[in-house]
C-alpha cells in the first residue's frame, strides 16, 4: 500500500477477513459468525442468494418477474441483487419493479422516489398501482374515516391484492418479494402464538400461491436482516409484531443461529391430518382467492363505502360471519386467527 493511502488506524482486536486473509474484517456474519471484509461479504452474500435461487428453482429462463418494490431497504437490495445475478448467471429473466402507492401523504413520497431512482439505476421498468385507482380510497382517506387504530388491517389486505393486480397488469409469471429471514422467523412465531395453523404451514414456503393466479417467491428467505438493513414504517407499528421482532433480536444476540432454527421449527411443524384446514376458494364479488364468501378487501371496502369501517375487523359482523357463527363458541382460536396485521400475509 502506498503511503498516505492507509485506512484509519484499526481498532484494537480487529482482525483480518477469514475468507481472503488480506483485508481488514468489516463485519461479523450472524449466520456463520464469519468475520469478513467488505469485498468478500458482497461476494458471499450474492453467491448465497444465487444458490438459494438455483436450489429452489425459483425462476425459469424467459420468465417475466415483478419485484415487489416498496422503496425500503429489502426490496431495493433485492432489485439490485436480482438484476445483477440475472446478468451474471444468465437467468434470462425480464425483471420489472412493481410498487403500490397507498396514498399516504409524506410516507410514500420518499419511497416512491427511491423506486423511481431504482428504475433508472438498474434499468428496470416500473409500474405503480395506487389504492385510489384500485379501490377508490387512499390510505389518508381511510385513516380520516377510521382513525389510526385498525389502519394496518386495511393497508395490509389492500396491499396484497394490489400487488397481484399490478402483477396481472404487467403480465408477469411471478412476483419476488424482499421478505428476509428475520421476517419469516417472526411470522413463524406469530402464527404459533396466534394458533394460525393455516398460515403457519404456508409462511415458511419459499414459493407461495402456486395454485393462485401469480406465484410469489422470497429469494431472501435465508438472508439475515442485519445484512440488508432497513427502513421505517410511520403509521402505527403493530405492537404484537414489534414484540416478537424484538424477542427475535434478543435471541439472535444470545445465539445467532436462532433465526434459522425458528424457520426450521416452522418447517418441521406437522399438522395432524384430521385438523380441518380452511378451504381456499374465490371471492364471490371480485373473484380474488379467498377462504370466505367475500375476500377480506371486499369486506373492508364494503364497510368503508357503507360508512361502517369496523366491518371485517375483529369480531364485527359482515357477510362472512353467518357461516362462522356455529363454530365460534367451540373454537377459541378463531377470534385470534382473524386478527390480521398489515404485513403478515405470505
Amino acid at each position, binding site marked *: 500500500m502506498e503511503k498516505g493511502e492507509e485506512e484509519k488506524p484499526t*481498532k484494537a482486536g480487529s482482525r483480518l477477513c477469514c475468507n481472503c486473509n488480506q483485508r481488514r474484517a468489516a463485519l*461479523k456474519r450472524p449466520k456463520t459468525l464469519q468475520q469478513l471484509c467488505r469485498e468478500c461479504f458482497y461476494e458471499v452474500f450474492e453467491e448465497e442468494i444465487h444458490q438459494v435461487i438455483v436450489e429452489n428453482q425459483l425462476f425459469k429462463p424467459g420468465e417475466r418477474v415483478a419485484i415487489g418494490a416498496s422503496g425500503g*431497504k429489502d426490496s431495493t437490495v433485492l432489485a439490485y441483487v436480482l438484476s445483477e445475478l440475472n446478468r451474471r448467471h444468465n437467468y434470462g429473466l425480464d425483471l420489472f419493479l412493481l410498487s403500490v402507492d397507498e396514498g399516504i401523504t409524506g410516507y410514500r413520497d420518499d419511497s416512491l422516489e427511491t423506486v423511481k431512482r431504482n428504475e433508472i439505476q438498474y434499468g428496470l421498468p416500473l409500474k405503480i398501482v395506487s389504492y385510489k385507482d384500485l379501490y377508490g380510497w387512499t390510505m389518508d382517506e381511510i385513516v380520516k374515516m377510521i382513525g389510526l387504530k385498525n389502519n394496518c388491517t386495511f393497508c395490509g389486505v389492500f396491499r396484497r391484492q394490489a400487488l397481484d393486480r399490478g402483477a396481472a397488469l404487467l403480465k408477469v409469471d411471478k412476483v419476488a418479494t424482499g421478505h428476509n429471514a428475520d421476517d419469516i422467523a417472526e411470522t413463524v412465531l406469530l402464527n404459533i402464538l396466534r394458533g394460525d395453523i393455516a398460515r403457519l404451514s404456508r409462511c415458511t414456503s419459499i414459493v407461495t400461491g402456486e395454485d393462485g393466479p401469480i406465484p410469489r417467491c422470497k429469494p431472501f428467505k435465508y438472508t439475515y436482516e442485519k445484512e440488508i438493513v432497513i427502513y421505517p414504517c410511520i403509521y402505527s407499528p403493530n405492537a404484537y409484531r414489534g414484540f416478537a421482532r*424484538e424477542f427475535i433480536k434478543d435471541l439472535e444476540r444470545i445465539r445467532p443461529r436462532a433465526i434459522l432454527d425458528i424457520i426450521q421449527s416452522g418447517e418441521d411443524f406437522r399438522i395432524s391430518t384430521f385438523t380441518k384446514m380452511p378451504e381456499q376458494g374465490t371471492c364471490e364479488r371480485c373473484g380474488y382467492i379467498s377462504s370466505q364468501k367475500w375476500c377480506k378487501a371486499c369486506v373492508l371496502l364494503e364497510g368503508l363505502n357503507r360508512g361502517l369501517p369496523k366491518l371485517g375487523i375483529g369480531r364485527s359482523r359482515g357477510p362472512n360471519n353467518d357461516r362462522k357463527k356455529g363454530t365460534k363458541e367451540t373454537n377459541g382460536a378463531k377470534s385470534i386467527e382473524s386478527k390480521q396485521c398489515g404485513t403478515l400475509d405470505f
Partner: protein
Amino acid sequence: MQLTLEFGGGLELLCDSVKVHNVNVDMAKGAEKLIMKDLLGWVHTNLIKERPEMFMKGDTVRPGVLVLVNDCDWELSGQLDTTLEEKDVVVFISTLHGG
C-alpha cells in the same frame, strides 16, 4: 473529542430528524479513554429527544440496532468496550420496522 455520529433506519426520528451530528464529547474527569459505553450514555442524554427505548435497552443499544465504528461492525471491535479516537465516525442504524 470530535466525533461524527450518524443515525439511520428511522433512529434519526429520535433526534430531531437530523441524520448526521458532528459532536464534541468530553471524557469523564480522570478517564484515559472514551469507549462506546460512554458514548451511548452521552448520546442518550444529549441527542435522543424521544422514545429512548427505541435506541437503548439496558446499558447497550436495543437488539436490531447496528453499530458501525469507522465502517466496521462493532461486534468486531469489542462492542461497548470499543475505544474511540479523535475524528471517529460512528453509525447507528435501526433494522427494526418496515421493509
